[in-house]
């Protein structure tokens, strides 16, 4: 199950244009009425990106990483999944049932047909169809014909799906946070969605790419590709039409997972840039200009910015004797710690605090350990300590923490920190123990938006991620839990044997599956918030590439955009 999907900040984007073959979308004409419903009740089909491939993809931000063979494999899996989806007979429209954004795979959930989106695309369909046919085919792209078994679009719904079983359960408290549109899916994407965008959407939804910096980076790289592949339709100007085109791509992405603050800022910048293009510019020149601009934007606002921040943060770490508290996994924080240890040879201890369900802290801890922060490793003078969030008080007490570094998803206009859920608690407890709390965040993450509590501005994660499954027994995530349990018992993922242990395993399995049926209980809700807001009072300073600031000075640094 994917609650252990490594939510790395790795970039799985490529600077090359080699887009492998991909399943084309069904005929545009049939999109509107198409009702591919992949809800077969129990079938999982999210391809689980392999851990290895993403590990390989962990790179310094900005360094282009070629699409590896594993990436290609991933795409092929996606194709297969799409084909499978198209094969399944219509069960009916589930227009009313929403799917939680960024749902991890493994849930036998509804794939929504973006009927609304499909309708939106009706009008521009025509010229897009033309456009697509005019478009030089992607190198290596192969058009896969429609499967004959595909149901004609006008087939009425024959059966009503078993709705409530896997219905989305919206927590009333945060009903405003659930997305209003239908979530993205491979099969319901319209033709004009660029394949890289599709890939990115999948990666975002599965939390393969997670973390503000990584998402922004991959977004920009993907948009660059889209721009490169773009051709202006005859009767429009690039500067006007490209924006619309990009908007489609972006709304598809945001239906996979709501955009983050930094992503929003980047997009706004790009759109502004496009709108200011010289209309006389030739298309190719314009595209080149845009791509170059994106590159330098990335370089300046992401890559170099994190370098600067890392070295500034480094300078705050003393040569010896520090114990630094961190939470979750932030690429910038990790960078700063490694820089201090490797480049500047400082010796300190890192206390990593982690929480359910994402366990991002584990990735950070492993990253640090692999870099050598262990006894006998390259960075021998440094150590790593790991703790869960319920052990915060003890961790702070026992480890004489001297500083706390937190990463940001965004910095709000009132000086509050918008970051992974749990950061507020870490900052609060750090304050209790008089530990200075330092936020590391690129200025790209600053926004004029404001919120006073954590529920006005947030993102709801996959509730099923909270249903605990014993990690070591999860080998495949495509098998539904009940069968999984049976599989576990039979396969015996552990090296156990004997009746007693079998019994124990049974018990474990039943314990694991405790919350399985949570949707069946009408009054029970599970809420998995992705973010929370740390009040300014708990923060001591913010380090961005433009300097160190007190948190209240965020609006002073030309904020990128207001509400949107």
């Amino acid at each position: 199950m994917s609650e252990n999907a490594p939510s790395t900040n790795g970039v799985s984007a490529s600077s090359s244009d080699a887009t492998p073959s991909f399943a084309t979308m069904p005929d545009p004409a049939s999109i509107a009425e198409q009702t591919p419903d992949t809800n077969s009740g129990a079938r999982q089909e999210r391809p689980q990106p392999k851990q290895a491939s993403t590990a390989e993809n962990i790179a310094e931000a900005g360094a282009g990483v070629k699409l590896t063979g594993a990436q290609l494999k991933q795409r092929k899996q996606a194709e297969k999944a799409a084909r499978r989806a198209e094969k399944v007979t219509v069960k009916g429209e589930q227009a009313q049932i929403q799917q939680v954004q960024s749902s991890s795979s493994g849930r036998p959930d509804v794939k929504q047909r973006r009927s609304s989106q499909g309708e939106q695309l009706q009008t521009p369909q025509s010229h897009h169809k033309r456009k697509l046919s005019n478009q030089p085919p992607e190198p290596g792209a192969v058009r896969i014909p429609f499967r004959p078994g595909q149901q004609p679009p006008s087939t009425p719904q024959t059966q009503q799906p078993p709705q409530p079983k896997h219905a989305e359960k919206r927590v009333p408290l945060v009903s405003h946070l659930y997305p209003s549109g239908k979530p993205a899916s491979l099969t319901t994407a319209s033709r004009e969605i660029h394949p890289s965008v599709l890939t990115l959407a999948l990666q975002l939804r599965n939390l393969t790419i997670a973390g503000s910096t990584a998402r922004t980076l991959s977004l920009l790289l993907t948009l660059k590709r889209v721009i490169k592949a773009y051709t202006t339709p005859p009767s429009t100007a690039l500067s006007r039409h490209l924006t619309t085109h990009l908007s489609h791509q972006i709304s598809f992405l945001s239906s996979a997972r709501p955009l983050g603050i930094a992503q929003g800022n980047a997009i706004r910048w790009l759109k502004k840039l496009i709108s200011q293009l010289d209309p006389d510019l030739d298309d190719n020149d314009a595209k080149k200009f845009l791509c170059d601009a994106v590159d330098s934007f990335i370089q300046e606002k992401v890559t170099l910015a994190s370098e600067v921040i890392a070295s500034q943060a480094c300078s705050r770490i003393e040569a010896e004797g520090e114990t630094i508290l961190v939470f979750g996994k932030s690429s910038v924080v990790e960078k700063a710690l490694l820089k201090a240890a490797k480049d500047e040879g400082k010796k300190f201890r890192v206390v990593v605090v982690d929480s359910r369900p994402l366990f991002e802290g584990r990735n950070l801890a492993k990253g640090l350990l692999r870099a050598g922060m262990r006894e006998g490793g390259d960075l021998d003078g440094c150590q790593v300590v790991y703790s869960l969030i319920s052990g915060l008080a003890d961790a702070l007490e026992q480890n004489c923490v001297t500083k706390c570094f937190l990463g940001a998803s965004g910095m709000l206009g009132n000086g509050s920190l918008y970051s992974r859920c749990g950061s507020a608690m870490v900052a609060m407890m750090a304050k209790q123990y008089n530990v200075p709390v330092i936020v590391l965040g690129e200025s790209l993450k600053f926004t004029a938006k404001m919120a006073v509590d954590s529920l006005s501005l947030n993102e709801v994660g996959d509730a099923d991620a909270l249903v605990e499954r014993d990690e070591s027994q999860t080998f495949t995530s495509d098998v539904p839990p009940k069968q999984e349990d049976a599989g576990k018992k039979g396969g015996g993922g552990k090296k156990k044997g004997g009746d007693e242990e079998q019994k124990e395993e049974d018990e474990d399995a039943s314990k694991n599956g405790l919350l399985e049926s949570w949707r069946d209980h009408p009054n029970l809700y599970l809420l998995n918030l992705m973010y929370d807001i740390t009040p300014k009072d708990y923060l001591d300073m913010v380090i961005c590439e433009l300097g160190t600031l007190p948190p209240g000075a965020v609006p002073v640094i030309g904020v990128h955009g207001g509400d949107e």
Partner: protein
Amino acid sequence: MAPNDQTGLATPPPKDSSSNFDIVSHYNRLISSDPSTTPAIAAIESLIAILSATSPSTITETITLLQSASTTLLASQSNPIPLSAGTELIQRYIITSFKQQPAQLSGHDFTQLRRQLITNSKLFVSQTKSARSKIAKHALPFIRDDSTVFAYGSSRVADAILSHAAESNRYFYVIFITSDSTDSNEATALHQSTKRLLAHGIPVATIPFPTISHAIASLPKPQASNVLFLLGAEAVLENGAAVSNLGSHLVASVAKANSIPCYFAAESYKFTRQFPTSFGDRDLQRMGAKQQVLRFRSSMDDDKEIEWSVEESKGGGNDGGVDITPPELISGLITESGIMTCEGVAEELIKLWF
């Protein structure tokens, strides 16, 4: 009042010598002669002395005598609050014991009763002298190895606690906070405490008062996690507030701001039923202390007093002035019966006074 050199209870002097017994000088003598005594105890002893010296013959007479003696004594001191704890206590005790007796007592019975009272009181006094060591023992678990103790004001109780901890082979750090108004007595006491602690191998630092916050922030991190403040109280008020050297309130505030526990040590006879509504000059004056810290000048030539002043009391007491530390800043009171919370003080006092 003519000085009277009767200090013991050898023979009851003639009946009307109450006016001859100078309680004030008796008190002052006790204070200056016995360094280990406290104002409250000396006050009690003085009252016992006058009781035995003047031998009243009726209950009413006794009570009146004690009351007037107390008033005289308290009026003579610039800071009568600690004394008042003692005088209240003994008066209460005597009144209570009288309540249990029939209203009319024959002369003989009364004398015997009086003798009994005096004996018991002396017993009490003798045993209170050991209170300090009991407090030291109760406080010991607070001073763990590698802890840092901030001490302020030359409190004999606090000193006893530190010495006891040092003798018990604990290794800890002591930081003495000195104040400008440290008079020579205090300076000597400080010097001696330092010597004693160093002799036991306890590292001692001395910092001036204005540097407290800075010192706390400068503690190396391992030390910073195990810190406490230890102050002595002259008196404990009904709501648990502590009367102590001027500056204690500030010290306790700094401790609270840094989430460091702040304990006051006081023997239980220092509890008094006074209850301030605030913590400034007027409240102290209301309780009898002649202290005015805040005094505006109207002209530069006003060279009468450039500094604030405290009317000098003759010996003993706290010449540097006192202030009141509110209960919310006090983490606990260390008494000879154990560690008490501030809320517990009211209950104890109410019990005493029914």
